[in-house]
């Protein structure tokens, strides 16, 4: 028989937070929500409070010397989670300003305990706890012992089976603050400002007894409240390759031949080429071919004017619902937010084909703070998408450089399972296009450089130029057979 205590985990009602916490909030834990002003501490507290409080086990929200309660109520009710009917029913506000101003911590503690005894709350919030600390420091009161106060509060709240949150403004994590030691959980909220962009980030610095997701997690505050973008779980494992390998048709028969029979299912494919080389047309035909076979797809577009760049095929697929469009023009995107948008759209449509058009636009859409980690971000995105079993086509703008052979401007070519490269060449005063399959992992593929053109029906792949050499240099020359011997 298992006689160990079971720690219940509470669902916080904040999307993504339970995942970041490592499975919800431990019941009866004593937590600190910390961060600089304006980072969303009070909003986070309210959102959890309205989600968790019940008339039988209400929430007590002690307001101390921070934000005036009238103002807090005024602003918090702008959020969808705020329920006026819950006030004085499952949610009770208690103002302790006068007691705190007197500076006697024992009296503050006595008031809190009296209210807790009277209401048997399941949740207790103290906002802002920082002001309790400051008030105690400014008073010349020898009886004030903050560590002892925190210790007692923590002990009493746990005994009364209340999950407790102290909300406070703390600027440095390195403070040797007694609260940090006593607290079971430390939720740190931050605002990262870089140049003209601001990104909200959350870190679970401590949560006793559970495997939290380490690192900084981005979140947004909208009318529905806080939404945390937890990284997509990656440990589901890739679906093992089935033999014979199933291949997806690209919608361009000759390209399928070049790929060795199509793109193996579950692969990621990078289509790299200069502006105007037809990457988006290739991507659209990939989705259209899927739709013809009854598959659904998702396309993420990162262009400033997505409607203007869409081709007719794609527009009709989106309109008919066979392709889902992820077109987040929200500023300062994070990789986890985009991955989450993509995954929810994939799940909604049960999609098998995904297009990211383009990585260059994607990089621009990211907040500057994430651009330094772009390769890591991209790697995580590709892994997250592949791990749900979809096949991914990514387009990448490739500045034409005829002195070196590169497939992506980010050094990310190794991330994908297959690569198609497109280039312009100059032949007889014409700008022609060539295309080659550079790699298809674990599969034979064609090594030819093929001419292709774009017409109303899409990409038309033509022949090689066997009598020309130096195609990748952009200015091919006529091959002079036999000149070496001659």
């Amino acid at each position, binding site marked *: 028989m298992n006689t160990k205590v079971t720690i219940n985990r509470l669902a916080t009602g904040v999307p993504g937070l339970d995942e970041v916490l490592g499975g919800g909030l431990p019941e009866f834990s004593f937590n600190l929500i910390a961060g600089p002003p304006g980072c969303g501490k009070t909003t986070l507290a309210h959102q959890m409070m309205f989600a968790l409080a019940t008339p039988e086990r209400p929430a007590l929200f002690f307001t101390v010397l921070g934000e005036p*309660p009238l103002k807090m*109520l005024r602003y918090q*009710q702008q959020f969808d989670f705020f329920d*006026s009917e819950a*006030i*004085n029913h499952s949610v009770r*506000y208690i*103002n302790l300003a*006068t007691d705190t101003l007197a500076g006697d911590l024992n009296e503050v503690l006595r008031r809190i305990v009296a209210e807790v005894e009277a209401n048997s709350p399941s949740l207790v919030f103290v906002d802002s706890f920082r002001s309790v600390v400051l008030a105690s420091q400014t008073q010349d009161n020898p009886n004030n012992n903050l560590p002892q106060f925190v210790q007692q509060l923590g002990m009493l709240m746990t005994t009364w089976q209340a999950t407790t949150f102290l909300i406070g403004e703390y600027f440095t994590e390195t403070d040797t603050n007694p609260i940090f030691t006593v607290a079971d959980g430390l939720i740190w909220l931050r605002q990262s400002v870089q140049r003209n962009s601001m990104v909200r980030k959350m870190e679970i610095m401590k949560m006793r007894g559970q495997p939290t997701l380490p690192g900084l997690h981005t979140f947004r505050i909208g009318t529905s409240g806080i939404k945390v973008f937890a990284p997509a779980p990656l440990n589901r494992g890739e679906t093992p390759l089935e033999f014979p390998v199933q291949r997806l048709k690209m919608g361009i028969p000759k390209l399928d031949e070049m790929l060795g029979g199509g793109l193996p299912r579950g692969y990621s494919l990078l289509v790299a080429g200069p502006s105007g080389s037809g990457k988006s047309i290739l991507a659209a035909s990939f989705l259209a071919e899927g739709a013809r076979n009854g598959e659904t797809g998702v396309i993420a577009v990162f262009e400033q004017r997505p409607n203007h760049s869409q081709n007719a095929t794609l527009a009709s697929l989106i309109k008919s619902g066979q392709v889902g469009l992820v077109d987040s023009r929200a500023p300062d995107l994070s990789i986890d937010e985009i991955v989450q948008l993509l995954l929810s759209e994939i799940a909604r449509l049960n999609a098998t084909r995904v297009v990211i058009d383009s990585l260059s636009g994607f990089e621009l859409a990211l907040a500057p703070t994430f651009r330094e980690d772009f390769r890591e971000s991209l790697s995580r995105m590709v892994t997250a998408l592949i791990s749900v079993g979809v096949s991914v086509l990514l387009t990448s703008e490739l500045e034409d450089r005829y002195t070196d052979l590169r497939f992506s401007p980010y050094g990310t070519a190794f991330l994908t399972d297959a690569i198609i490269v497109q280039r312009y060449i100059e032949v007889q005063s014409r700008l022609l296009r060539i295309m080659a399959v550079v790699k298809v992992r674990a599969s034979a593929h064609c090594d030819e450089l093929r001419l292709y053109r774009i017409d109303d029906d899409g990409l038309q792949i033509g022949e090689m130029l066997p009598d020309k050499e130096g195609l990748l240099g952009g200015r091919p020359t006529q091959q002079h057979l036999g000149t070496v011997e001659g």
Partner: protein
Amino acid sequence: MAGIPAALIRLNTINKAISGKPHAHSSRHGLLKVYYPNQSIRKQLAMSALKEESRQIVASLAQRVGPDADSAGIAQAIVSTLQDMDTALTPIIGQQGVAALFRRSLHLYVGRQACLVGSGDRVLACQAPAALKSLLIEQSEADALFFGEVLLMTYYELLTTLIGPSLTARLLRDVWKPSLSDTPSQENSP
């Protein structure tokens, strides 16, 4: 008029006798209303955006006043209503917050109704609801009741502009409750 408390019938009559320009308060927020002293305050309150709430406030005060109260009784009813509002709000927004709301309501009231009850200065000198009592006792029954209705409405509207109608209604529900429970059911329909 069946079921309408006698105090209100008296008020109607007296209001008709008062003539004058509308007392407008040009609020910075543009949310406050104009009251015409030569029209029934009850009618005017009933036309305000907070129609249901005005009805509740008027009915509750009338109930507390009772059928044949003198100025002292009316003053007591007004003060006790204000004190009940204090009691309901203090745990949530704190003593200082409630005191500030009361003071702000008085200022708004004076902006609207200075000529009706005493001088504006005497009204503004009141720091707490209890201080209003001595001032109100000196007034006629109708003036005192009119003052109470307008002040309570002003207070209510002020809170509404700050925290919205639904939360205001929620927080002050119990203040009007005892009077409503004693009110005959036909009183609840306009």
